[in-house]
């Protein structure tokens, strides 16, 4: 299977490509994506003297603490001022720095929306925003802290880049890539441990989707940890003789339109999977491309226009319909709708 080697993630699963049962979670263990962000910042700090980090009083939760410990002179505490921390980052960027500001995604995208819009995006300032605690899997903290709207809010703003890496290692690569491009960017990552399954040699390029599994019966377009759930669903479907393509849409903006169009043309049925509201996020972005280029039936897996709540992460993922079995069911619904 050509893409398995191309995507370089699947040799622990090659059994699966010929339809055999695969053990669930054959991975390199589990690790939260936020650690990839924290480590990526340190790599950037070692590489460039003008990379600086702004703290939002939760440095230990979004792992900017790594950078803070390593480069105390380039770490600046902003207190709890998300809006103005974003503006300070703008000033730093306009003075030639590469500033990262990170906090919980709910506040990294909503408390400073006007600042991102005008001072970062309209200004084309080289500001990097890290949005942690993405999705319902935040768990016990509950609805206020479960970021489910950032993809829509960031995606609608011109000039923004929005990346949503799928596991720890890809988050590290994405953080470095975001630091080495010019322009305002937002990177989304999560709190809880999720399977690590990409490898050093798995390519990551901003704006380029990765096909993690081939198949032409249907295509799952996913981002973040939902990519792993999608792979699980796809490999279970192989046992039923259903060959599903799995696409890691690690960049939401700019969007890899061609990979989406090809999937629609070659598979005829699409499922999107995101730990986000199904309105205006990844599902919306995919629906827009298809409506413009190649209409096809799409089933959306995501949070259905409701707020979250307290609970255990895995418990909530089940209740809000964000598991591999939800994706499996969606694939079957989508395939039924094929013309």
């Amino acid at each position, binding site marked *: 299977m050509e893409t398995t080697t191309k995507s370089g993630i699947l040799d622990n699963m090659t059994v699966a490509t010929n339809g055999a049962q695969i053990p669930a979670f054959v991975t390199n263990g589990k690790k939260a994506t936020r650690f990839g962000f924290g480590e990526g910042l340190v790599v950037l700090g070692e590489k460039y003297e003008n990379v600086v980090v702004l*703290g939002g*009083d*939760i*440095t*230990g*939760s979004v792992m900017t603490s790594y950078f803070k410990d390593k480069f105390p002179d380039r770490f600046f*505490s*902003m*207190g*709890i*001022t998300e*809006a*103005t921390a974003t503006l300070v980052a703008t000033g730093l960027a306009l003075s030639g720095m590469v500033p990262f500001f990170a906090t919980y995604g*709910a*506040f990294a995208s909503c*408390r400073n929306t006007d600042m991102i819009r005008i001072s970062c995006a309209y200004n084309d300032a080289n500001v990097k925003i890290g949005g942690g605690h993405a999705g319902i899997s935040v*768990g*016990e*903290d*509950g*609805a*206020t*802290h479960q970021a489910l709207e950032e993809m829509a809010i960031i995606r609608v703003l011109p000039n923004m880049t929005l990346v949503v890496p799928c596991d720890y290692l890809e988050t590290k690569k994405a953080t470095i890539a975001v630091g080495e491009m010019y322009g305002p960017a937002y990177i989304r990552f999560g709190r809880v441990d999720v399977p690590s399954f990409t490898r050093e040699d798995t390519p990551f390029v901003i704006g380029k989707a990765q096909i993690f599994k081939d198949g032409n019966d249907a295509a799952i377009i996913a981002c973040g940890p939902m990519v792993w759930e999608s792979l699980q669903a796809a490999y279970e479907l192989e046992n039923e003789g259903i060959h599903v393509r799995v696409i890691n849409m690690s960049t939401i903006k700019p969007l890899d339109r061609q990979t989406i169009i090809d999937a629609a043309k070659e598979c005829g049925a699409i499922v999107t999977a995101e730990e986000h509201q199904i309105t205006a996020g990844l599902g919306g972005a995919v629906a827009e491309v298809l409506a413009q280029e190649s209409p096809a039936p799409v089933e959306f897996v995501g949070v259905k226009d*409701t*707020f979250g*709540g*307290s*609970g*255990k992460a895995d*418990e*909530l993922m089940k*209740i*809000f319909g964000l598991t591999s079995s939800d994706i499996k069911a969606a694939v079957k619904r989508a395939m039924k709708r094929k013309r």
Partner: protein
Amino acid sequence: MPRFTHQIYPLETGFHGPTRPIPNADLVKQYEFDSFVPFKNSADNSDQKLHEIAQQIRRDIIRELVEAGSGHSGGPLGSADIFATLYFGGVMRYEAQNPWWPGRDRFILSAGHMCPVLYATLANAGFFPKSELLTLRKFNSRLQGHPGRDMGLPGIESSTGSLGQGLGIAVGMALADKHVDKNGRRVFALTGDGELSEGEIWEAALIAAHWELDNFTMVVDRNYCQIDGRTEDVLKLDSVADKFRAFNFHTIECNGNDISELRAAFAEAKSVKGHPTCIVAKTFMGQGVSFMQDDYRWHGKPPNKEQAVEALKDLA
């Protein structure tokens, strides 16, 4: 002229499915939650009595948190005396049995993460069974990790959890009471000190002063701690009192772990005319629990089982 009316309280749209968390029966028995008789809210409660209630609230905070396995210890323990004075010292008017009584005073917890102390206070006042404290942060619990109005928990006037928002909501309530309904109701709000760095705090302060909301009293839990460290290291805030004075508040500084000072402060606040009041209450994070006392690292951690035993000893 008629009013456009609609039921506002209680809201119960936040439940996902029928399941409800069931309190751990052994603990309910062990803590004697079943047989608990709520404390009375009365101006006659002696300082000693209020201190005992505050300690009771602290013990219940520990019980909530160890059972939840996550949540915030430091701020809730540090502010228990403030809550005891507010709810049991005759400062706030409410009817625990009739929680949505229209004539009630309002309390907004702007520092939503400190909800364990509010929940414990409300339970001790009889707003809901104390056993429910053991469902904190569990799926479909009315005791959400941050207050969720959509769960209809008696005594929760608004969802909070995003810092800096509750204060403006409280100001809006005070505005409605003083300038529209003119109903003599009083509105109280509590903020953390780290929370003061949010600009909306100062916007709300300007508005409260401009509209001369003397029915509005805010308390700052001045514990000099936030998540990343001491407030003066994270983002210098001193002098908090000078800031609120410059924003045209009647400002009172007091020991927030001293019942009699708190009582005096609330009494003074009630007598002020033409200005909102800010009580800067100096507290210790984790007050009452030796190994948490004044240690910012306890901002957002629960005690483990062993630590809980230790803590309850300290609070006995």
